């Protein structure tokens, strides 16, 4: 599980995240959402141990990220929006490399199972340059899941995927949650969160404006029973966009 207590992250005088607390239990998928500059990326980076928090504590699978970063990181997997792969490592070599980093002794069987599940069993000898965007994403998923993480972070996981890739990614997230993983999913796609998440955390200007299960947040902020998560989001943040201005047509010189 993920347990964040009083997380604060400051850049000089500016607090990107202020006194944020939340928890994600095994089997839950928490959607992290907020307008640009709300502190989503900072929260995600702090939770994955990429940057240290200024204050507060983060526990991953029972391991304190500050006291035992190696123990905590053994539990987690992070999937960035853009898969960052090594140009000269084949699909299989990527998995071999990750296996050594995480000490996955039975990686060969696990890797083959993962590759087969993601329909990449015949792609083991290909380089990233020979893979499509979706295939790269799949390779990233294989690498991330090789060590059977119990805590998973997704940052805009649908970026650049085709419809089939999008469907597969949603299925993967649901399956991982069903298997007991605690998942945080950061995205601007509110429809995705509505489909996949069990819980939602709405941030604005570094602070929490709403948190809880989808039903709880809906109850708290929905102005009518049919309100979508998008409606709930704008009510909670108070950021509903204004109507577009009417622009007069340009006056062109006579031909």
């Amino acid at each position: 599980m993920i347990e964040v207590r009083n997380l604060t992250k400051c850049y000089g005088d500016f607090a990107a995240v202020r006194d944020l607390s939340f928890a994600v239990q095994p089997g839950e998928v928490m959607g992290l959402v907020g307008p640009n500059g709300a502190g989503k990326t900072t929260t995600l980076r702090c939770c994955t141990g990429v940057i240290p928090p200024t204050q507060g504590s983060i526990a991953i699978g029972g391991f304190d990220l500050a006291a035992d970063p190696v123990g905590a990181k053994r539990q987690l997997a992070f999937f960035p929006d853009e898969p960052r792969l090594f140009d000269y490592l084949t699909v299989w070599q990527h998995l071999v490399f990750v296996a050594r980093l995480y000490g996955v002794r039975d990686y060969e069987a696990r890797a083959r199972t993962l590759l087969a599940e993601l329909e990449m069993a015949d792609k083991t000898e290909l380089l990233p340059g020979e893979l499509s965007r979706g295939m790269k994403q799949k390779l990233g998923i294989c690498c991330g899941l090789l060590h059977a993480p119990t805590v998973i972070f997704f940052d805009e996981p649908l970026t650049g995927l085709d419809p089939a890739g999008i469907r597969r990614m949603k299925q993967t997230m649901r399956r991982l949650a069903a298997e007991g993983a605690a998942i945080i999913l950061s995205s601007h796609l509110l429809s995705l969160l509505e489909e996949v998440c069990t819980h939602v955390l709405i941030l604005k200007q570094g602070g929490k404006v709403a948190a809880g299960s989808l039903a709880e947040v809906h109850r708290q902020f929905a102005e009518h029973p049919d309100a979508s998560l998008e409606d709930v989001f704008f009510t909670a943040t108070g950021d509903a966009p204004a109507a577009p201005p009417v622009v007069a047509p340009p006056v062109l010189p006579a031909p």
Partner: protein
Amino acid sequence: MIDALLYLQWTSLHNAVRARLQRLRRPRYLVATLVGAAYFYFFFFRHLIFRGVPPPGRMPMPAADAFFVGLIVALMLAGRLVYAWIISAERAALAFTPAEVAFLFPAPISRRRLVHFKLVKSQLRILFSAVLLGLLSNRFNLLGGNSWSHAVGWWIVFSTLELHGIAASFTRERLLDLGFNPWRRRLWFGGALVLLAVGLGWWLLRTAPPPPAAGPAGPAAVFAYARLVAATPPLPWLLAPFRWVAGPLLAGDALTFLRTLGPALLILGLHYVWVIRAEVSFEEASLELSRRRAERIAAVRAGKSWKGERPARRRGDPFRLRPAGPAPVAFLWKNFISTGPWFYPRNWLLFSVAVLAVVGWLAARPASRPWLPIVQYTALPIGVWALLFIPMLMRRQVHLLIERLDVIKTHPLRGWQVVLGEMLGPVVLITAIEWLLLAVTAVAAGATGSHLPRVAWMAGFGGVGISLLVPPVAGLMIAIPFAATLYFPGWMASVNQPRGMETMGQRLIFSGAFLLTLTAALLPAALAGLGPCLLLEWLTDTWAVALLVGAITAGVVLAAELAAVVWWLGRRYDQFDLSLELPQG
């Protein structure tokens, strides 16, 4: 319409200069610019402004060497021609930026005007390069003449090359329209070149002076003979157009400069007419070229290497990586694959054996021993280059590490493991190169001094001693750019981006700090090694063993320093907060 294009040029230049000046408010840019300006002043301009101050180190060039410089320049130009007509598969040499493509291609501008726009734009770059190289060549007095004649000479050479490249690309494009695909063109032009070379060889065999009966003994004799051959007709005639282009650059005095200016300008003018009169539809090819160029610039700005159109090729495992074991070895394994199969242990071993076999063969034959000093003197600069250049490449690798930090930091590793892992690759690379060069030098030195047993022994023991020092020294040298990037990431982020004077300043500051830090790291080891070395030599009167023991002692100190540095950098890596170190914007 030309007004709009000139406006675009002028405004872009004006804004670029203004942005650069505004950036000087930030201390790191100001300091770097001041250092860069001081370098340019003291190295280039001082001697121009104060004509009484003789530039130190200027030496008049012997006439025979001037002949060779001319020959080299002519061959370089010929090489450019071979590239343009045989090797190149580029369809157009007119590269436009994506913005230029978006705005100018659909605009009501004639093709000829677009070509002129590109020619004017390229002149900015050419003029800058010409002035800089003019100052540089005058600084070392490689060519005679003065800065201005050199600048004009370089301008003619670069402009002719630029125009020839464009004209050749237009012609290639036209040939493509006529059904000459690149391979057919290569076959025709390459075949013609081979025929010319064979015919020339046959002719020279009949007319050129014969080589010395016993074969040329040593490099000096080879050069003397090459000079005779180069002066044999028809070689001087064939190389004449190239010598005409390079004439003003190589002119040693004002009269020669003026005499050579006419033919050079005539060739330049003919090239201009060729480009302007070529009515070729270059837009599609230029579009493709600009896309690739934009990709390359984006990659360089992001600190990545750019592979161009050539797809990466699969590389086998350098060694079997087991799933359990020290994590740094995984980074070494990964970096071996990135570096390429040349440096895979087995391949490098085979290559080393082959090189040593050749050197051993040279050493075994008294007739070929005069070549051994060349082998030694070649090995030395390569060794120095590898020691200095590979750590420079390390900056790019550290940048890649920082770029992927949000992924790598999620791995369950301590900082020192990541640092050691990333350092292992270049350290092994440098060590492999240096060990081979040391072995080559030791074999060559041993053979040339074989009549003196002490020399052979010292070459052997000295080589082994220095070999032991190579890995820790390489590690420390690699650690310096690593530390610089981790401690000054904002500054180092701009290292890969060409930014003129301030980049020059940054590099100078970095080089100074590099040498200072390295000296500070090497000094304790040198002192620690010197004591046992001198003591043993005094006791045994044997330099060979004393050197070895001294090297071992120094190596132990260096290894301890390296371990401390890796631990310290690991701590820094653990605490490294990219979002704080590299603020947005």
